[in-house]
């Protein structure tokens, strides 16, 4: 793994632009709606997190985060059903939608990274409810933010 320890690739503005655009296109493809890239790249605290761990040339985690209202809206769009709760005790549709959301975003990011010479593979998706940037030991932390129908969606890219 020739790249381990060399984080300079992640400082490239061209990579950031490529990742932002790649995520935007993935979101638009998944949600069938217009997505606006937000200029502000500061971390924003949300309620719902879909996380995917990756490994390969580099290891890390990709999170997709959104508030509960947005998660329910997304779940309704994807399933075509009225979803009123993230965990409804039955099929937990909203939970699974956000989980798959994270998988799709991470997968498309991995494809772009591969084209940039960084080869990573994804692990099975899981979901967490908390991420604290102050406690994160990642060497690289990037926060990409998007607006979808007035709601904020955030993608957090962490490199160990």
């Amino acid at each position: 793994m020739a790249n381990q320890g060399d984080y300079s690739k992640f400082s490239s503005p061209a990579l950031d632009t490529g990742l932002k655009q790649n995520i935007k296109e993935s979101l638009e493809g998944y949600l069938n709606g217009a997505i606006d890239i937000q200029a502000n790249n500061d971390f924003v605290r949300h309620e719902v997190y879909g996380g995917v761990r990756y490994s390969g040339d580099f290891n890390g985690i990709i999170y997709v985060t959104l508030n509960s209202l947005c998660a329910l809206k997304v779940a309704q769009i994807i399933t075509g059903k009225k979803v009123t709760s993230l965990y409804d005790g039955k099929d937990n549709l909203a939970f699974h939608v956000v989980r798959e959301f994270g998988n799709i975003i991470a997968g498309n990011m991995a494809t772009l990274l591969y084209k940039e010479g960084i080869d990573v593979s994804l692990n099975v998706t899981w979901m967490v409810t908390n991420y604290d940037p102050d406690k994160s030991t990642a060497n690289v932390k990037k926060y990409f933010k998007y607006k979808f129908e007035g709601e904020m969606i955030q993608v957090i890219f962490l490199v160990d």
Partner: protein
Amino acid sequence: MSGKNILIVDDSPIVQGQLVQMLEEGGHTIIDKAADGDSAILKYKANKDKIDLVTLDITIPGKDGIQVLTEIMEMNPDARVVMISAMGKDNVIKDCMKIGAKNFIQKPFKKDKVLATVSFVTK
């Protein structure tokens, strides 16, 4: 084109639901669904003579999609398997094709693409 009998392998109930809807609307029959590699192998074995096509996610719990593909091709060199993944890396796609996959669909997918791929692979 007559409807085909399809085994769906994906650990996401959302993706399973989307594929079931798309494929049934396209006139196909879903023989069974599996959410992990081990049950995918068992279900393929149990329905081998009926299954016309398998849709197979690469990142699944237990045996991953590539291991499942390898075992299916060993059981049946004529098996028709379409790989599905959120990742579209050339090296992974080439590896799957070398093992015997017939096509590849990247997520998020649209109904037209899924049905066209099924039609192409099963003609």
